[in-house]
């Protein structure tokens, strides 16, 4: 049963994918599925049995996603974590729509860890990412809602001896008009439980939706999050619980040589000090004691195997590799990711744009620093935290405590942001907490708290990226040849999905760009050298740099051709057959008043980018204030297929724009001699209230299945701002962040 659910979800995801949009994602689905296979040495469909992460579980009459209480209240089970992106409301609305539940009283509950029932159809394991929560759940949850509805309707028909076709359902009430009977869902539970769930329940015609796509779909957690009562990992207090902090090495790859815990153990409240694989852990009665204990530790580090390069050196090495000045070392080789026409000729002719772009390390820095609660008793383990990939957490934990992954219980809480950080194949902070809880043992809960400095200095950053772009043009000023080189550390290498294959996350967005499709001769290659710094996906992943490079390059080409940047893009989209790009661009230009003068003192810039199956266009109004770009009005248009929760889509466009702008203007982590320079918000500058733009969101009408929303709003603002600067007569932006110093 659980295995067929996995297949169903994956198939549904593939069936629904808009043709061009999620092609890459489907491929990466396959890659991730094989990740599970590599990891456990069996096919993903056997994962459930072998690892027991998908063990059969009695979810009740309506299956894993729907619970109905005797009072009729419907609870929708979310297999995805809620860390801001608003998916809990959207997922619940999909069920409530098909079930015709009472939306006002519909609740949302977080799923247990069970990859059999709750695998992400795009991942093959239970996890949230790739802006896939809504899209991979769309058919699955519509089916769950429709199935429960059919069972309730059949129950009423039986009870009232009425034809099924005469039963109606509205707002949680089942009625039979002819006999004047009606009943709440709760009144029909006993009878409905006897009905076999239909194999293929009839889904609604989307034209008849009354909830999905309306502004009635609002967050369910707004009040809890406005009263301080929403429960985060940081807030977990359990009887007898200990709080842990860890002294980590100053450089990546360094290890503990020796340590002296004498002073630490004298701090009142400190209970014990342990050496663990990632450093030295102090466990204490409370947070402040743990902090003071850690401050009192004396640790000597063995840095003989540490990464000691500074970021300036890494950037210089990348530039030399891209220019051909140095050759790749060892087994690392250039890999082509797009080639058209006589690729070798892309090095010839007279270039109109020949430039490089450099992107720094970026920390996710979610507001809730990383943390986890673990309870280990022998080979039994339970985790309580904001689990973005529960299946990975189970696998990693099981390895440490010596049990089957499926035996590891996971309670997933709200997380105070993530932006990708809480999902990684090493489950880094979870593993650290489990190591400590294993030392403590006896089922005593341990809460690991990372300070902000721990969080920022721990790596798992967006990697340093270097692009080198060279473009020649035809007689009309449009690209004739396009040579593109990308040098960056691979995010996927070293993960279970590694290997010698192309790391799609390094090039997505350049690969697949309509501008390359519109260019007759293309030679695009990527090189992924090894660096001893852990790196990770950062909200919108490859698009964090590729959107900037492609959009800023195209604006430079438009300027060189003496053409309007919007008109120039229109022609390229026409040549590439990119109708969705054209549609969002046209609407954004219209709403922004492109072509009419900008408000006095402001200059407009435009950018368009497709990621996670959705296409976003932005027109930003920008001025320079004290030498720094200030962004005012940002008109945003998104084509994300069917819109589930328009208000939350707008919220994600607003928030994504802020995170993207924060990175473009200020974001950077530097290494000096292998040690991070930035460690807190006094040195890692982020966007603040008065620096935030006003984002207007327009959703392009679409009948396609839903596509991503959480990430696609992030990468577009950076190039839109850079393009506004270009329009002001400023030089091209060749490295981020824009605000130096």
């Amino acid at each position: 049963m659980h295995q067929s659910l996995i297949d169903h979800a994956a198939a549904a995801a593939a069936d629904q994918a808009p043709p061009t949009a999620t092609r890459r994602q489907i491929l990466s689905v396959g890659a991730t599925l094989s990740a599970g296979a590599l990891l456990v040495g069996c096919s993903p469909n056997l994962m459930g049995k072998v690892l027991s992460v998908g063990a059969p579980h009695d979810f009740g009459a309506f299956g894993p996603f729907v619970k109905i209480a005797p009072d009729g209240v419907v609870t929708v089970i979310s297999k995805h974590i809620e860390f801001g992106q608003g998916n809990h409301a959207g997922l619940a609305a999909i069920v409530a729509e098909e079930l015709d539940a009472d939306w006002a009283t519909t609740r949302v509950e977080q799923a247990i860890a069970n990859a059999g029932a709750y695998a992400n159809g795009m991942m093959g394991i239970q996890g949230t990412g790739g802006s896939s929560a809504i899209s991979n759940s769309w058919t699955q949850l519509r089916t769950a809602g429709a199935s429960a509805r059919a069972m309730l309707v059949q129950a009423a028909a039986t009870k009232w001896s009425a034809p099924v076709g005469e039963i109606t359902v509205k707002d949680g009430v089942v009625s039979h008009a002819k006999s004047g009977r009606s009943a709440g869902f709760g009144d029909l539970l006993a009878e409905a439980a006897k009905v076999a769930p239909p194999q293929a329940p009839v889904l609604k015609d989307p034209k008849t939706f009354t909830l999905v796509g309306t502004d009635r779909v609002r967050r369910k957690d707004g009040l809890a999050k406005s009263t301080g009562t929403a429960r985060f990992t940081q807030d977990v207090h359990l009887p007898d619980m200990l709080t842990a902090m860890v002294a980590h090495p100053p450089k990546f790859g360094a290890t503990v040589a020796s340590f002296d815990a004498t002073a630490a153990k004298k701090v009142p409240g400190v209970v014990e000090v342990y050496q663990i694989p990632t450093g030295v852990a102090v466990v204490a009665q409370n947070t402040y004691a743990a902090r003071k204990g850690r401050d009192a530790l004396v640790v000597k580090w063995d840095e003989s195997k540490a990464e000691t390069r500074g970021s300036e050196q890494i950037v210089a090495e990348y530039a030399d590799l891209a220019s051909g000045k140095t050759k790749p070392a060892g087994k690392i080789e250039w890999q082509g990711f797009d080639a058209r026409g006589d690729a070798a000729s892309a090095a010839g002719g007279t270039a109109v744009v020949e430039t490089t772009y450099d992107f720094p390390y970026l920390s996710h820095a979610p507001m809730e620093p990383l943390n986890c609660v673990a309870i280990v008793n022998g080979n039994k383990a339970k985790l309580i935290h904001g689990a973005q990939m529960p299946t990975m957490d189970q696998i990693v934990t099981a390895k440490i405590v010596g049990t089957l992954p499926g035996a590891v219980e996971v309670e997933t809480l709200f997380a105070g942001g993530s932006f990708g950080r809480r999902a990684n194949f090493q489950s880094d902070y979870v593993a650290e907490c489990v190591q400590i809880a294993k030392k403590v043992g006896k089922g005593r809960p341990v809460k690991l708290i990372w300070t902000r400095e721990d969080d920022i200095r721990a790596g798992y950053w967006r990697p340093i990226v270097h692009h080198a772009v060279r473009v020649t043009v035809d007689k009309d000023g449009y690209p004739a040849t396009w040579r593109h080189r990308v040098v960056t550390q691979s995010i996927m290498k070293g993960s279970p999905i590694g290997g010698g294959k192309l790391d799609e996350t390094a090039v997505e967005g350049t690969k697949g760009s309509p501008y390359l499709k519109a260019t007759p001769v293309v030679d695009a290659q990527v090189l992924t050298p090894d660096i001893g710094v852990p790196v990770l996906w950062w909200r919108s992943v490859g698009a964090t740099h590729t959107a900037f490079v492609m959009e800023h390059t195209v604006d430079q080409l438009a300027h060189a051709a003496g053409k309007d940047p919007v008109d120039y893009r229109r022609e390229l989209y026409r040549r590439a057959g990119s109708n969705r790009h054209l549609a969002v661009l046209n609407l954004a230009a219209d709403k922004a008043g492109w072509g009419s003068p900008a408000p006095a003192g402001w200059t407009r810039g435009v950018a368009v980018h497709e990621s996670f199956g959705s296409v976003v266009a932005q027109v930003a109004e920008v001025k320079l204030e004290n030498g720094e770009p200030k962004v005012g009005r940002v008109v945003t248009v998104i084509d994300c297929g069917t819109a589930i929760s328009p208000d939350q889509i707008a919220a994600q466009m607003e928030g994504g724009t802020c995170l993207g702008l924060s990175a473009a203007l200020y974001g950077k982590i530097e290494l000096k001699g292998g040690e991070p320079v930035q460690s807190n918000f006094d040195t890692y500058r982020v966007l603040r209230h008065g620096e935030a733009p006003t984002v207007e969101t327009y959703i392009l009408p679409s009948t396609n299945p839903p596509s991503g929303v959480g990430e696609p709003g992030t990468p577009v603002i950076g190039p839109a701002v850079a393009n506004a600067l270009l329009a002001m007569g400023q030089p091209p932006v060749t490295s981020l962040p824009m605000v130096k110093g």
Partner: protein
Amino acid sequence: MTTLNINGKSVTVTAAPDTPLLWVLRDELGMTGSKYGCGVGQCGACTALADGQPIRSCSVPISVLTSAQITTIESLGGNHPLQVAWVKNDVPQCGYCQSGQLMSAAALLASNPKPSDADIDAAMSGNICRCGTYQRIHAAIKEAAGFPAVAPVTAPPAPRAPRAAPQV
């Protein structure tokens, strides 16, 4: 032992006098609405009020607060005009910073009932939100202050109306 006045009640705590208020609230008193975000007074997630003024409770030891009236998010009660506006505008995303945002906003409105855009920018500049809810925070503060509500949203497939006039 240190005696504090928190949300109008006298409370005696055992934490050492150098302990920051935040950890006394969270670990000793179980009042977890105030959040840890940076520990150095840079992000505002821990914001509480002392005699009506915003303080970063992560960086203020309880020893200096013995004669202060301390107010935390727990005192707002859920029906505070700011909280009503927060919910109505669906301000929170991850929600982690919102207690601090609300306390800074509450202090602002208590001293300046009709703040200008610049007043709001200045008063809220110490509270970071990584989800980027600034625009809605701004709108909700104005709404709670009695300024006209932002334009209502329209449902797709019709494009949405703007939520607010541009800040210029």
